[in-house]
């Protein structure tokens, strides 16, 4: 298996059960898509430098599955998404809420192989 690009966290074991989401080209840079991964709604983000990140799509503050529709950018150098409901920012790398240390969303392992985006089912943390 050849790898165009993977995030650091991806391991070979997980890759065998990874769920195909879409092609990387299907995600406009600095935006996200929502994918169904092992029954979970997962927001898959692509940053301007083609970094790929996956977070739970559910906004725990707003109480709706909308994070894939947020604006993607940087805050203080941190790649982040702003929830479209009440604008809380979430660190794309860790799922940590930038506005409230008590809040975070689950992250998922994600990789890109042959231009295809793959997400490992099961949240890494929550």
């Amino acid at each position: 298996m050849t790898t165009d690009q993977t995030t650091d966290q991806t391991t070979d074991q997980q890759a065998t059960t990874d769920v195909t989401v879409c092609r990387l080209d299907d995600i406009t840079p600095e935006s996200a898509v929502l994918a169904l991964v092992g029954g979970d709604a997962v927001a898959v983000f692509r940053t301007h430098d083609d970094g790929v990140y996956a977070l739970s799509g559910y906004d725990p503050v707003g109480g709706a599955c909308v994070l894939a529709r947020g604006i993607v950018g940087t805050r203080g150098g941190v790649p982040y998404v702003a929830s479209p409901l009440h604008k809380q920012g979430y660190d794309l790398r860790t799922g940590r809420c930038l506005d409230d240390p008590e809040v975070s969303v689950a992250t998922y392992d994600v990789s890109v192989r042959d231009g295809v985006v793959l997400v490992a089912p099961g949240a890494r943390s929550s």
Partner: protein
Amino acid sequence: MAPHLRKTLVVVGHGMVGHRFVQAAIERGLTETHDVVVVGEEVRPAYDRVALTSFFEVGAEALSLLPEGEYDDPRVRLLLGTAVTGFDPETRTLLLGDGEVLDYDELVLATGAAPFVPPVTGHDLTGSFVYRTIEDLEAIREAAATARVGAVVGGGLLGLEAAKALADLGLETHVVEMAPRLMAVQVDDAGGACLRRHVEGLGLTIHTGAMTTEVLGDSHVTGLDMRLSGLETGASAPSSTTVDCDLVVFSAGIRPRDALARTAGLTVAERGGVLVDEQCRTSDPHVWAIGECAAPDGRMYGLVAPGYAMAEVAVDALLGGDGAFTGADMSTKLKLMGVDVASFGDAFATTDGALELVYSDAVAGIYKKLVVSEDGTRLLGGILVGDASAYGVLRPMVASGLPLPANPEELILPVTSGVSTSSTTGFPDEAQVCSCNDVTKADIVAAAADGGTTRAGTTCGSCKTLTKKIIEDYYEAQGKVVDRSLCEHFALTRQELFEVVAIHEHTSYDAVLTAHGRGGRGCDICKPAVASILASQLNHHVLDGANQTVQDTNDAYLANIQRNGTYSVVPRIPGGEVTPEGLIVIGEVARDFGLYTKITGGQRIDLFGARMEELPAIWRRLVDAGFESGHAYGKSLRTVKSCVGSTWCRYGVQDSVQLAIDLELRYRGLRSPHKLKGGVSGCARECAEARSKDFGVIATEKGWNLYVGGNGGATPVHARLLAGDLDTETLVRYLDRYLMYYVRTADRLQRTAPWVDSLDGGLDRVRAVVVDDVLGLGTELEAAMSRHVDGYFDEWKATLDDPDKLRRFVSFVNAPDVPDPHITFREERGQSVPGDATGPVSLGSTIPVGAP
């Protein structure tokens, strides 16, 4: 104190000064020892005569200084519609017109002044008026309804006010002034010439150096004869000329009403007015005179502020105080027909050795003059015409004797040279900044330090600029910087970004970020702000190319996101007018997609609960039925609300529905700093609540009144009159300019009400730019709006025609047919409403997953 010791104080006259006297008497406790009787000749209680001209706009009630009709102190008795025919200082009795005799212990004359009517032949014909009371204005309005041409005799402050009123009433208007210039008392020749160009620009005809010799007509005014000095025409000898007119308003100055005092044998000044000492006491120790009927030290003051000061002094004296009136600051600043005029201190350089510094820009219509002391160290006075923004800084410099900066000319040069913002840190603490409320610089700094407020700027407002500057300088000295940058990615304000985008013709967020950003990739603040700026300038589809990722979710999905992640759909219903067929289609769509349906506050129908992936199918049906996007999701024009207007309403005087539809269609899709709403009411009953909107139009018998800056969001604000009795074409032109000016210069998410307030000069500034076009931007703003109107297309129709744009309207990218399980509904009052969210939901692993 025994009851028989209570004294009676009678005040003759219930104008502004008489009222101020009574207020001060109550506040300072004079009514503890005195019963006060106020006798007013007019039928209504005191009103704001300074703002008399606005009577036509706001009505008598708004001008009243005593709206309840009586004082809340029971020891004050107010007799209105009552004349005083005489008084006797020997017996201390006062005779009223109805025969009643009042005893007094102390008598205060506040009888004011009467208009001077030159004794020319025909001055008393039907159709000739003076300009002094609300009744005068009512009579003028009635006469103007059947008149075509009006002439005002007198080109002073009040004459120009009267002329403006006539012009606003739709008359061709002439001003006849004996002096060689307008406002001869306040401004010099060059200032008068500048003012004249402004006034002529409004369509008025000005005759200076012209003496009225006769009012023509048998029983009714038909014209006016005047003799020209020849200075104006360049002729060597005087000549005569006639103006045909249907009405004449005399405003050739005022004369103190001192007849009562004369008859009673009191001393009057050489040039009229009851002679009083520094405590406002007349030659009889129990009679006082204040305001325009009084002549302290032989001089009569025709302004209200000195009258107020005299009222305070007289109350003080009656209480045994030693306050004195020793002259008054005759500085004036006013907005005359939309033109700033200010005159302060020694405006005519009468001080020995005084020097004049003049800045004049005939093209822009600006004239500024500073009078400085011989050694150049002190400001003595000045004149400002066309731009009086520096008045707030300059007047206190005269009053407090502050040293002039090294380059005093900088005080009047245009702001681009950096100046009127010179630092206030050199001002001494005791410098009086607000003369109306006696607030010093030290008071303002103290208030800034502990977060309090002062009354500076709350009366005449002329010191607002200086007050703001002092506060800013204070914070700056504390090392605090008022940061106006948009966000961490841009050091620019929204207004600066707007200009940068226009100048560099950027077409994408990336280009703006690359060229003007300060690192990073943007955020939820700058991206939508730049998206809005680009949309305002480009008229492109907001979802075109890379710009789709900088849109807020509402724009990104062309619908309003709601609390459970679903969207609401709002088709445009211009002016609230919809056909039965249209209603049926909306009803069918709502039924077929299970949408909650509600009439909005803006006369439209809101369909709630649409899943994102359903939006294209819903809009397909609506677009096919002829509906288009209502932009309920955008920071853009939402609706123009209307009443039913003259088509159906018994009271309507204009077709408000047609205008509302026209305006809504004209401005639909206009992306702006915040959402915009308008309203059009067909008559003054205001059923469309137009004055609660960002722009409101109210029909009058003669056209449209245009109000702007209503809707302050969380802080409700009523719109204020920008211009009156407009024809439709002018109305649209002003609206084009107003909206574009707002789009270009407001801050991010700043509504129109705070935007208007944020401008230096507030509403006056908006009027200067929109109506008077002082920036010369009118044509450009109209052209920009015209480009918007021409470039308009329906965003939803364009989206439905573009598979690329539709691609994102799916629930899951890899399972487009699976609905988002987080969205649930329950029923309330027979309709679907959001169910409770309970955290992330798993669909389980049995759901089939499609390949990319």
